[in-house]
Each structure stands twice: as structure tokens, then as C-alpha cells.
């Protein structure tokens, strides 16, 4: 028998399709009668999509131009 905690521990593997067929069956069996896990699974899937699509902390390459230049100045200075 699978508990909610068991399901929670496997939720990432499940979403990534990394569970074997018989385990998947057990997980889905649990899912069919547990509304909490259904909600958590659905919202975790949506969380992943939101996070991945958000472009967080991604700055254009140009934003780092001054840093790159300063690094190169130090490197060239060292060589001289």
C-alpha cells in the first residue's frame, strides 16, 4: 500500500517518467482515490512549468559586458 508520503517522495520521478511500469500502476492507483495527491501533483507540474518558463535570473549577455571586460583586463595585465 502506498501512503501519501510515499507518493510525495516519488512525485518528481513520476513527473519525469522515471518510474517502472508496476510502480507507476501503484502510484496511479493511489492517485485515483486521493484528492490531496491529485492536487499536489497537478500544482507541482504547473509549478515546474511556471518556474522554467519564467526566465528568472536570466539577464542578456550584454548585461555582463563590463564584467567580461574587467576580467579580460586583469588577465591581460597578469600576462604582461
Amino acid at each position, binding site marked *: 500500500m*502506498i501512503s501519501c508520503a510515499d507518493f*510525495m517522495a516519488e*512525485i518528481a520521478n513520476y513527473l519525469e517518467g522515471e518510474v517502472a511500469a508496476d*510502480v507507476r500502476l501503484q502510484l496511479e492507483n493511489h492517485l485515483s482515490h486521493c484528492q490531496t495527491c491529485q*492536487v499536489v501533483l497537478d500544482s507541482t507540474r504547473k*509549478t515546474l512549468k511556471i*518556474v522554467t518558463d519564467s526566465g528568472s535570473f536570466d539577464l542578456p549577455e550584454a548585461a555582463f559586458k563590463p564584467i567580461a571586460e574587467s576580467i579580460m583586463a586583469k588577465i591581460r595585465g597578469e600576462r604582461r
Partner: protein
Amino acid sequence: MSYLREVELGSSFPPFATFLEEFGFVPHIFQAQTILPRVIEAEAALLATILLKEQALSQIQKEYIVLTLAQANRNVYCVTAHHQMLRLLGVPEQQLDRIFADYAQAGLSAADTDLLSFTLKLGTNGSFVSREDVTGNLAHGWTDESMLEAILTTALTNFLCTLSTGVGAAPEFTPRQIPAAGPSPLFGKPSSEGASGSYLRAIERNPADFPPFAFFVDEFGFVPNVFRAQTLRPDILEAEASAISMVLLTGDILSRLQKEYILLAVSAANLNTYWVAVCGELLRTSGVAAEDSDQIGADHHQARLAEADKALLDFARKLAVQPSRFGRPDVETLRHHGFTEEQVLEAVVMTSLTNFLNTLQIGLGATPDFAPRRLFLRDLSKIAHLSTPDRRPTLGERPIDPDAESVAKVRNGNLDVFEELINRHSRRVYRTLVGILGNDDEARDAMQDTFLKAFQHLGEFQQRSKFSTWLVSIASNTGLQRLRDRKHAESLDEDGSVSEEGFRPREVRAWTDDPEELCSKAEIRALVENTVMKLPAKYRVVVVLRDLEQLSIEETAEALGLGIPALKARHLRGRLMVREALSPHFTGGTRGVAV
């Protein structure tokens, strides 16, 4: 002064400040490791908790254990240093000479003499130690607490002896001559102890509210019995956890796999069944097949390993079990195989740590234990391995690297190409650093350090991994070091490392069908950034690398020096925390959407 390059760390480096205060000098054994300050920190913590703190045994009693065992190990460096320690502790020269000549005739109490006989047997001929040796001492009035300290001190002595031999530390004082070895002591038959639990009293602890255990659950997936047997001293368990985390779990110098191989090969050389078994399990969860790890234990020359890695294991085994024959040429051999100074040092420290762990287990009598978190998981991981055979990392594997050509050009002196590499990877390096440091300014600053380090060490980049992975691992180490340096450190290991067992979802209201429609892209980005920034660092970095940077599980594990199971556990926990935080914004209830 030693076999390895040294750098100046200065007396403000905290462990050195402590040594200066305690001993009046920085011992050469630590001076020889200045190229890797983090291992000195870990060793200093072991030394402070095991040797310098007075609890059940006095410092003099513990120094006697060190001195007699170092003498039996014929380690001139440790004998000289601890002879000096005992003088500092006020033991008269004459008494030290008597101990040196024969501890059994030195006028010590019968109980003290018995204790030294036990620690000598444990330290030099561990496989002969049995439950009776430990219970016999308990019967003589030693408490469980004092026996635990005696066993730990013995293990620490073997650690220091191996370490000083490996780095080639020269004595700080006039070396003590060790008399020619007498007949080796007779210890009876090797113990054939079965699975019968540890010898000493221990307290049951729950990983959920005991940080050292939470660490092992997090990193290994289980709490090895050898640590369960030491719960009388949580402070020492913490120092051990930190040593394991700094020495074994890092992957930026030697790979984690290489260090697990050292643990396995040296434990096998020491005939330590327990650690060979634990190591087999660790390697299995890292994706190494049982037959491959068995072969390394039996004879690594016949194993499927790169030639350099075979040389690495030759080096470690010789240092561990034939220290009298070990010397500078062995270090040279590793250099010829392309290992850097830092890598040689890590090999020495890892070998020493293995001798420590092996001695500890024999003294404690801990029996193998792989009880997984729950049975269900064990079955699952077995199946998961079968279903993804081609994802197993092997040492010989060389991933195709799109940057290989550029790296070669820079190595040949074309500096401008390095600027291209910076531009190509700046976004990724920045994200990694923001993920660790949680702060834009600091991330930019650490970016400079990262690329400068990469440039300086480009000659050491061995193309075992892709350049981008190597770069991310430098970035993460730079970030982690800065995190450790922060005063009120939010560390990757200490931020309330609760096992994922305790995690229960609180937000269980259903989300709307199209959550991304509820807010603008900018709003969502700000929300995600705020949420991620609020995560504890160890989860934050994994979420950033996996879900934002979209590195593979293997690449992330390598960059952070984590095992795959530990990484997966943190990743899951981090994702679920993000889910909790985002939930109020996307549940039907708050936006008036019917569920």
C-alpha cells in the same frame, strides 16, 4: 618542508589562530595542506572535539593513546608532536621516557594500562578486536562515554599518522627516535563477530530532529550504524559529518566517484567488511554496478578504470597499509599521471579519512545496515537503475564538449578566445551564483572570481567533464566558499537540514487550469525570483541549476559534488517548497475561480 606546494594563509585563518593559541605554533601537518583550507577546517573540528575537549577522558589520557599508537605505527612526526603536547600539558620528561620505553611499566593505573592495550590493539591490529575487548574495559570501570572517546582518539591517531605520512610533514621539534620494533604483540584469533550490534550504549535518535543524522539521510539516504553508535557525542558526530562533507562529498578537485573508489579500495585493503559494504551501496546509488565495485575491492588493476585512477588507488592503498614504504616518489608518480597538487592532497586526506572511519567502525562494532528510508524506495531504485542503464556515469566516458576547441586555443596562448568563453557562459555562471548567494551584487562580484579561477586553472582542466560543467562547479564552489565566509552563515549544510520525511504539503487547494494567464510575464518572473531567493541555499541552488538552468541530474550532481540520491532529495524538497509558496497566487479560491 613537505611534499606539496604551500601557500600563506596567515594567522587570522581561524584554525591557525586556534593552533597558535593551543600549541603556540601551526603544526607542519596543517601547514602542508594550505592549498585546500576547507580540509584544514574539517580536521581542526575533529581535533577540537575529539582530542582537545575534556569530557570523559582527560586530555593527558587521550594524548597517551596518541603517543603509544603513533609509536607503534612508527610515525616519527606524530610521536614528536605529541611528545611535545604532553610536555605542554605538564607531564615530566622522565615519565614520558617511561611511557616511551614501555607503557605497561610506566606506573600508570591498571585501568589506564588496560585502556592503552585496547587502543593499541584497535589501532594496529583492528581485525582482532572483539566485543570482549570492549566489555572487558567496561568491566574495569571505564564508562561507555570514556570507551567511545578512547575509540575516537585511536581512530584520530590513525588519521593523523596517515595524513602526516602522506603530506610528508617534517617534525617541528628534534625528532624522537623510535626504538627498533620488538616482537609484534600477540592478539589471539581474528574476531569473527557476526551481526550483533554495536558494543557501546547509544541513544536512539530521529533524523527529523537530530541534525547530524538528517545530514546522513540527506547525503547517503540512510544513517550508517557506525554513526548511530556515537550518539553519546553529538558534537563529534557533527565534526565527522562536516569532515565527510568537506572531504568526500565535494567534487571540484577529485571527482566524488574517485573518492568513493579510494574509500572502497582502502577499506578493502584494511579488510573492513563494514565499510566495503557501505561503499558498495554508495557506489550503487551513484550508478556503479555491483560487479564493478566488487572488482575494485578485490583487485582494482583488473577493474574497468582509467590508468590514472588505478595509479590513484595504488597510491592510496600504499599510503594506508604500507606507510613505512611510502614517500616522495609516490607523490611524483601521481604528478606524472597528471594529478594536480590539490588532487594529490585530496587523495591523501581521503585515504586518512578512510583509515579513521575504518578504525572507528572496528572499535564500535557497528554492523552493516542498509535499511532504506522505506522498503518501497529500495525496490523502486532497483527498478529505476534497470530502466536507465545508459545514464550510468563511468570514469572513462568523455562527453563531447562544444567548448573543447576554444579551450585548446586559450591554452595555446590565444587570450581573446577566453573572452568568447566568458560571453558564452556568463548567463549560466551568473544564475548559478545568484542561486547560491541569493544576491545580485555579490553574484556579479563572484563571477569575476569564477572566471579568473577558471583561467588560472585551465591547465588543470582534464576534460573529464564538459567545460561548462567544470565552470559551473567552480562557480558553485566560489559561491559556497563565500557563503561559508559570511558571519551569520547560511550554509548549504547547516540550514536546518531536515530530512524530506518531515515534509507535508500544507497548500492543498486546487490550482486554476491556466495559472500563467492570471499574471503578466513580468509579475510571474518577479514572483518566482522572490520565491527562489527565499529558499534555504541548499534547495535554492538545486532548483536554479535544474529547473532554471536546466542542467541534467548528472551535471548538477557533478557541479555541486553531490550524489544523485541526495541531489534528487533536495531537488524534490526545493520544488515542493516553491509549490507551497506559489500556491496562494494560483489557487482558484483567491482568484475567484471555481474549483
